[in-house]
């Protein structure tokens, strides 16, 4: 028996209705479960923050709150200037284990600097300090960076707030490949089509996406540069072309082609040149995921049922990775190479599972039944995936220990095919 984590064990009844405006539908993130012991922290408003048109510290607070790991203690309008040592014993008395002090300093010509320090109220030591130059319009990015700093200082792991996600929105007969900040804000459309778009995959540079578009009435793999909208066909062979995954150096792509019959794995350059077959089977090989461990993980039914295998990126003989159940698909490896996320069929329900590659221990993380397309945050701590709620496609995220859950919805549309991008530069 595989352990199934109880649903909604910890209920944090908090809804952040994040209002995306303009041409885009409203995006909302709902936190449906949080860690048992949340770290009490004070994130006060920064000194002189009022000179910015938009709050930076609101972004920091929302990020930390949403992570499920922190409990925010409110100081109201009281600022703790960066240049002044805060009264740590008094702040400890208010229940905080850590305190951020900070100021916004105007540098003139519309330029500012966010200066901040983090303190441990117990040891009364400064944990770290930073100064980030910024423009007023960068309040969200700078807020995410400050949240990343606090997260890393307090958890020992890199933060994942200054990242972007890609996903596909279907509304009526229209498909849009959208890009948003990891908190669902700043949504923008990269590609709009009357035909399906699937399998977006971020290049390691965070500036390009590979994906499959059906705009030519068949699946073709494109590489799309987000800033310019420039697109390049990288795989359009006879038959179907799909399932792109970038090599960690961003130079190559693993793809699935059917030019020689059934779906099989190939590797090619990011410009479409130098196509080489990676593996051969008499069945289906698909969904390659190019891991940082030098292996390409993939789904194959060569043994009868779809299971996950891996093969060295240089070729060789594949090894089977999953053994429990008769439907294990969509493999994704965490950046540290220790954890494999995938979709398993569990008594008729498709659910997100993780397998510890060292121990082979499998844990099912969700209690839903239409989960698809898992995608790790860069730090491996959260897994973004597509599922269904109320008959509509929604995005959800679950921590890799199953304790923290979030849901991201776009009203009046189906959302699917999420991909979590690398940290923003």
């Amino acid at each position, binding site marked *: 028996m595989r352990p199934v984590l109880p649903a909604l064990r910890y209920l944090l009844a908090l809804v952040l209705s994040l209002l995306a405006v*303009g041409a885009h539908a409203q995006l909302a993130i709902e936190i449906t479960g949080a860690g048992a012991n949340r770290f009490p922290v004070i994130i006060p408003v920064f000194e002189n923050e009022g000179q910015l048109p938009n709050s930076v510290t609101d972004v920091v607070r929302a990020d930390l709150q949403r992570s499920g790991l922190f409990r925010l203690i409110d100081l109201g309008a009281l600022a703790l200037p960066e240049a002044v040592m805060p009264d740590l014993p008094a702040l400890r008395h208010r229940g905080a284990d850590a305190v951020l002090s900070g100021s916004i300093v105007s540098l003139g010509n519309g330029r500012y600097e966010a200066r901040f320090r983090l303190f441990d109220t117990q040891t009364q030591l400064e944990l770290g300090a930073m100064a980030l130059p910024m423009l007023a319009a960068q309040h969200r990015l700078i807020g995410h960076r400050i949240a990343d700093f606090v997260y890393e200082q307090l958890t020992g792991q890199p933060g994942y707030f200054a990242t972007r996600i890609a996903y596909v929105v279907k509304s009526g007969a229209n498909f849009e490949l959208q890009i948003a900040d990891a908190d669902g804000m700043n949504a923008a*459309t990269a590609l709009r089509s009357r035909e399906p778009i699937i399998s977006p995959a971020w290049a390691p540079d965070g500036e390009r996406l590979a994906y499959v578009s059906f705009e*030519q009435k068949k699946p073709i793999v494109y590489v799309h540069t987000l800033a310019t909208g420039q697109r390049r066909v990288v795989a359009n062979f006879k038959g179907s072309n799909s399932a792109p995954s970038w090599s960690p150096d961003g130079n190559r792509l693993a793809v699935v082609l059917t030019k020689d019959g059934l779906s099989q794995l190939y590797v090619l350059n990011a410009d479409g040149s130098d196509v080489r077959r990676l593996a051969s089977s008499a069945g289906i090989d*698909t969904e390659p995921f190019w891991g940082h461990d030098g292996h390409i993980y993939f789904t194959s039914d060569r043994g009868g049922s779809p299971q996950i295998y891996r093969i060295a990126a240089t070729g060789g003989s594949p090894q089977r990775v999953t053994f429990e159940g008769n439907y294990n698909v969509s493999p994704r490896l965490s950046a540290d190479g220790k954890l494999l996320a995938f979709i398993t069929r569990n008594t008729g329900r498709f659910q997100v599972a993780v397998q510890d590659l060292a121990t082979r221990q499998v844990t099912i993380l969700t209690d839903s039944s239409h989960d698809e*397309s898992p995608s790790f945050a860069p730090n491996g701590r959260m897994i973004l995936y597509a599922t269904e709620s109320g008959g509509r496609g929604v995005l959800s995220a679950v921590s890799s220990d199953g304790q923290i859950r979030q849901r991201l919805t776009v009203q009046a549309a189906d959302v699917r095919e999420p991909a979590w991008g690398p940290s923003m530069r």
Partner: protein
Amino acid sequence: MNKLVLPALLAVLLSACSSTSTDTSAQPTSSSSGSSTGVATVTTDSAAGSGIAALTDPNNILSKRSVYFDFDRYAIRSEAQPLVDAHARFLSQNPQMKMLIQGNTDERGSREYNLALGQKRANAVKQALVLLGAQDGQIEAVSLGEEKPRCTDSSEACFAENRRGDMLYSGEF
């Protein structure tokens, strides 16, 4: 439930987002820089129609284009044989005509794995046509997987409707 509504101050930023469109050669026809999100929008175009009356005449078997499959099966049922025969004959008598076969699946399971299963169905239809006299070079077998369902309910009847291969002729794709 405690609802915390954050101030929405992005209208100006989002309205500054750039948009671009593409023709079928996938080149952006316009783009603009200075987007606050650093993401330019591209819009794709779609294709046109056929021309031969027999292919659309509802009294002609050639107007029927769908071959259905059983659950988890990739062999053509005997009832579909006359339809496959007719199209194979048409292709062999009209060697200038090309055909695109689109394989489809029901919605259950992974999109990419379903794309691979749809390919199996498209390949099965192609093999049957070639066996009956069509030229291999006339036919391209591709998959739409679960992406273009003809029926969108989560019912057995609907799943069966979506397990099929569709035959499209030159000009229809």
